[in-house]
C-alpha cells in the first residue's frame, strides 16, 4: 500500500495536469516525489527553498491572483512556524488555499520533538473558517485532497500521516461515518485512530463513529448517535482534547460527558518507533480499552 504522502504526490500531479488554477508550493520537503510535475508545470510547481514564512505568504499571494494554491511541508513548519502568515495572509486577507501537512504528531519518532506537531489542529481552532481533514488511509487522503482543491476559495487543512488504517472508507469531506452501533456510549475515532479504536472496543456495546473531517465538526452525526444523556469518547491523533469543545457544543442541549484522548502535552523526550509512541500516549488498543471502559463503567457488561 502506498503512503498518504506518496498518494498526495501522485494526486496533486494529476490535479496540476487537469486544472490550470492549481499551483503547488513547496519548501524542499517532498520535492523528490513531484519531479515529473515540476518538469511539466515549471510555473505552477514552486519550490521556495527552506523558507516557510515565504511558503505561506507566497501561497496567499498566488490565491490573490486567482490561483488555487496547494501549500505543503511538515506540519510543524506549515502551521506552527509561520502561524501568523496562516492567520493573516490567508485569514485576514480573505484568501483561500489548501495546506497539506505531513509528519503529524509522531510519524518519525526517531527524528525527535522538532519534527512533531501535535498542536496543529488546536492552533487552527483559534482561527475562523478552516476546514480540517484528517484522512486515515491513502484512498481517503486522495478523496479529501480532491475535495479540498475543488472547494472554491475555502481555507482547507489536510493532515497526512504515515499511520494508516488497513482499509479506506468512503469518506465525503463533510460527514462522520457510523462504523458500528451500540447502546453504551459513543466513541469517535479520528482518521488513523480507527483500527486501534475498533480493536480496543471489541466486544463492548458502543457506537463507533469515524471522523475524517473534524472542522466543521459533524455535530448532527454525534447528536444522532448519542441520543439522550450520552457519554462520548473522542480519540484523536493529535493533542488530547482538541475536539472536546466541539463535542460539548454539539451536545449542549442534553446532559453529557466527554473524554478526550490523544497525544499528551508532556514532551516524551524519547526516540524509537511509532508503536512505542502510541503506547506512551495511551493510544494503543490495550491502553485505549482500559481508558474507555474506565470512563464508561456503568454501560459495560460484567466481564
Amino acid at each position, binding site marked *: 500500500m502506498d503512503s498518504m504522502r506518496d498518494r498526495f504526490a501522485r494526486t496533486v500531479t494529476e490535479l496540476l495536469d487537469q486544472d490550470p488554477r492549481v499551483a503547488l508550493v513547496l519548501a524542499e520537503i517532498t520535492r523528490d516525489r513531484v519531479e515529473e510535475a515540476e518538469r511539466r508545470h515549471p510555473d505552477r510547481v514552486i519550490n521556495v527553498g527552506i523558507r516557510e514564512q515565504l511558503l505561506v505568504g507566497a501561497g496567499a*499571494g*498566488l490565491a490573490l*491572483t486567482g490561483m488555487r494554491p496547494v501549500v505543503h511541508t511538515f506540519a510543524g513548519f506549515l502551521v506552527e512556524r509561520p502561524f501568523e502568515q496562516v492567520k493573516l495572509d490567508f485569514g485576514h486577507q480573505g484568501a483561500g488555499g489548501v495546506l497539506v501537512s505531513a509528519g503529524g504528531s509522531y510519524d518519525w519518532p526517531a527524528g525527535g520533538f522538532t519534527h512533531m506537531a501535535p498542536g496543529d489542529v488546536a492552533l487552527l481552532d483559534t482561527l475562523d473558517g478552516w476546514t480540517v481533514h484528517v484522512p486515515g488511509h491513502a484512498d481517503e487522503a486522495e478523496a479529501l485532497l480532491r475535495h479540498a482543491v475543488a472547494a472554491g476559495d475555502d481555507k482547507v487543512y489536510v493532515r497526512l500521516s504515515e499511520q494508516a488504517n488497513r482499509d479506506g472508507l468512503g469518506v465525503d469531506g463533510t460527514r462522520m461515518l457510523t462504523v458500528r452501533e451500540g447502546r453504551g456510549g459513543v466513541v469517535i475515532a479520528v482518521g488513523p485512530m480507527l483500527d486501534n479504536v475498533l480493536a480496543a472496543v471489541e466486544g463492548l456495546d458502543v457506537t463507533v463513529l469515524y471522523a475524517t473531517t473534524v472542522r466543521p465538526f459533524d455535530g448532527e452525526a454525534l447528536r444522532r448517535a448519542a441520543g439522550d444523556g450520552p457519554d462520548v469518547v473522542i480519540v484523536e491523533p493529535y493533542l488530547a482534547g482538541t475536539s472536546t469543545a466541539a463535542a460539548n457544543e454539539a451536545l449542549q442541549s442534553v446532559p453529557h460527558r466527554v473524554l478526550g484522548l490523544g497525544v499528551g502535552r508532556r514532551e516524551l523526550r524519547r526516540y524509537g518507533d511509532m508503536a512505542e509512541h502510541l503506547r506512551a500516549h495511551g493510544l494503543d488498543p490495550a491502553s485505549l480499552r482500559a481508558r474507555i471502559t474506565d470512563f464508561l463503567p456503568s454501560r459495560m457488561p460484567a466481564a
Partner: protein
Amino acid sequence: MTTTTTVQAPAYGYADLPRLMALMTGDEKHGPAATSTLDALWVLYDRVLRVSPGTVDDPGRDRFLLSKGHGPMAYYAVLAAQGFVPVDVLPGFGSYDSPLGHHPDRLLVPGAEIGSGSLGHGLPIGVGSALGLRAQGLTDPAVWVLVGDAELDEGSNHEAIAYAGPAGLDRLHVLVIDNSSASHARPGGLAARFEAAGWSTATVDGRDHEALHAAYTTPHPGRPHAVIARVEPKNVTAAR
C-alpha cells in the same frame, strides 16, 4: 439619472494632499514621519501604476501592496486623490464605522490590494502575486510592494528577497522608504542586501519626483527591482 462615458480627470492633485491628510489628522502641518511615503506614493500612483478605480478587479492591472501599514494617512490621501476612496470617508479615520483604520484592511478599503500592519507580510505576498500572474501568462502587470527600512528587520522579507532574485521575478518591484528608522543598520546596507540577491537597485531622494520616476521606470530585464527612496530621518530630534 444621467450617465457619462467620458473619463474624468482626477479632481485632486499633489497640492491637495496636505488638505486631504488634514481631514484625517485635523492639522494641515504634518511631520516627516506622517509624510515619509507621500511623494513616493504620489509619483507611483500618478505616473507609473496602471490601475484606476475602474480597473481594481482587472486581472491585468498593476498591483500595489502597502506592506508598511503604519501611518497610512498619506496612502489614504493618495487613494482619495486618485478616486479610489471617497473623500467624504476621510474624516471618520479610525472610527468604528470607518473603512479607514490606522492599519489598512483590503476588504474595507477600495483599491487596497492587501491589509497590513504586522510588518513583513507584504513582500512574500508580492512574490506569490508575481508568481501567480506569471503562471497565468499575465507577464505585463507589475507588482509593487512598499516597505519601510526598519520593516526589513523582519526575516520574512529576507526569505522573499533571497528567493525572488535567483527566481528572476522581473515583474516584482520593491519600494523601500528609508527614513533611517532601523535601530541597527549600516550605511548602504539596504541596497547591498538586494544586490547580493541579484536584484536591480536604485537609490534616490524620496522627495524628488523626477528622480523617483526615473528610478521607477528603469529597465531591469530578468531581475526584480528595488527602489530605495531616502527621506528625512524619522527620529531626527531624538538622534541629536
